[in-house]
């Protein structure tokens, strides 16, 4: 039976279901607190306080936000195309959440006499799976833009389509360098390959730079948040959305930010590997080493999520033509050059 279906065959379904439950809990909590962190950090950067009233340090703010979203009035414009209007936020959240299935939090380890791999599905083609599912996420935005029957929404939807397709290209090509060097599409293999040589951010800084810039564009975050651009097109594709449907777009955005941060960590910054520390971890028992690995991975990912927020509140928005020029005339040729560089490096035996 194919490996994707193997996971659910026989008794395999119980551990898989448990893992899925843990993962969804983790991602949802992370998303809630990233939205909180964004507001606190924005406050810090702009020399104001930010939300600090609900609970100690304002830590219960996400809970209050969630309740508020649920109890807000739900408005569907009378001329909207209702089925797609309702479907669009669901697509956005589902695709964002599904990508996490192949995310490894560490290598497989032995505990209680069993080998446990800290991920839901260990696919041969993990990286491509993430790209495939993420590329379906654009439907959520496009459909939201079209079904709202609002010209600003439609403009936002069109902008996002053009932007996502344009930046998918340099992002994938930057990824090609990593895949060539690691010789595998499995995320865990890519991390192990970096343990044996160097972090790819060091070995191919150009590739890492292109990937990070494109990832910002793919997640519609400032300085590339053209689909929303509140100063130009009100709020873009989610202008007409209210209550929990708006919150779903919001959640999808933060899930995508989390996923991109995880990918940047895994592909270019060694995943759960830290130089020097790795030697110290050798003496530990397998489960505690796995916990240390997961903590290292979470720490690095948190840094990149912070980086996302930091950039958002520091840089101004690009103009739309500048965005397209950057994607097609700068990043794309650079990404191709990076592939040649990696090829040469492999020939010289650097990897």
């Amino acid at each position: 039976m194919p490996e994707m279906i193997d996971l659910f065959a026989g008794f395999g379904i119980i551990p898989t279901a448990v893992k899925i439950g843990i993962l969804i809990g983790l991602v949802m909590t992370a998303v809630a607190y990233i939205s909180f962190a964004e507001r606190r950090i924005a406050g810090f950067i702009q020399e104001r306080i930010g939300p600090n009233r609900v609970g100690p340090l304002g830590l219960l703010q996400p809970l209050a936000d969630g309740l508020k979203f649920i109890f807000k009035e739900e408005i569907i414009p009378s001329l909207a195309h209702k089925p797609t209007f309702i479907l669009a936020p669901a697509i956005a959240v589902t695709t964002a959440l599904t990508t996490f299935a192949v995310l490894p939090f560490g290598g497989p380890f032995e505990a209680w006499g069993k080998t446990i791999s800290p991920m839901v599905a260990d696919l041969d083609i993990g990286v491509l799976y993430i790209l495939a599912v993420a590329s379906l996420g654009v439907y959520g935005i496009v459909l939201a833009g079209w079904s709202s029957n609002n010209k600003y929404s439609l403009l936002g939807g069109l902008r996002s389509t053009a932007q996502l397709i344009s930046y998918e290209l340099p992002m994938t090509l930057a990824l090609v360098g990593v895949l060539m060097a690691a010789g595998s599409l499995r995320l865990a293999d890519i991390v192990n390959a970096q343990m044996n040589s160097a972090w790819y951010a060091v070995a191919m800084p150009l590739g890492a730079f292109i990937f990070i810039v494109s990832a910002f564009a793919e997640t519609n975050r400032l300085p590339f948040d053209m689909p929303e651009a509140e100063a130009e097109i009100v709020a873009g594709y989610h202008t007409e959305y209210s209550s929990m449907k708006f919150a779903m777009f919001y959640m999808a955005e933060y899930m995508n930010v989390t996923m991109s941060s995880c990918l940047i960590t895994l592909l270019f910054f060694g995943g759960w590997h830290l130089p020097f520390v790795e030697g110290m971890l050798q003496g530990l028992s397998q489960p505690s080493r796995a916990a240390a690995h997961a903590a290292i991975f979470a720490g690095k990912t948190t840094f990149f999520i912070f980086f996302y927020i930091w950039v958002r509140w520091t840089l101004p928005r690009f103009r739309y033509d500048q965005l397209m020029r950057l994607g097609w005339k700068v990043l794309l040729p650079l990404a191709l050059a990076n592939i040649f560089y990696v090829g040469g490096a492999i020939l010289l035996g650097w990897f």
Partner: protein
Amino acid sequence: MAEAIFWFNAFIAVLTAAVVVLHRNPVVEALALALHLCSIAVFFVLLEAPFAAVIQVILYAGAIMVLFLFVVMLLDPGGEGKAGRAGKIQLAATLLGAGAFLAALLPVALAAGAGELPPPVHPGFGGVRTFGQLLFTEYLFPFEAASVLLLSAMIGALYLAKRELD
């Protein structure tokens, strides 16, 4: 399990294909086509070809269909219900096409009935490694020829668009 998934997926595939043909709203049709392409990807997974499945989703559902939707959204003049009813020629063409397709399927169906299916290829056939090796050894020439064809199509499209602009 695999069989249950196959039948469920086959149902989705046929249903979405029917929606593509029968629905009156072009955007809904484009969406149904996207879903149909995804269900084809599931068939690839069942056939132990995960690489083909993922490429199917990335290229067709993720890129080409999005552009389709883009064009439909921009060009669709009045929204719903504007697609014309099928005329006699379209009806005849549909029947002819369906007939030709069924005729092509008939030998396979007969062979399956008699239990004479070809043996499954070796495991790992649909993986990236085998795929890449075949592409760069046995199918190198068709692969390169196809890329040249795409390049010429791209230049042609650029030329047509530029001429209209000038």
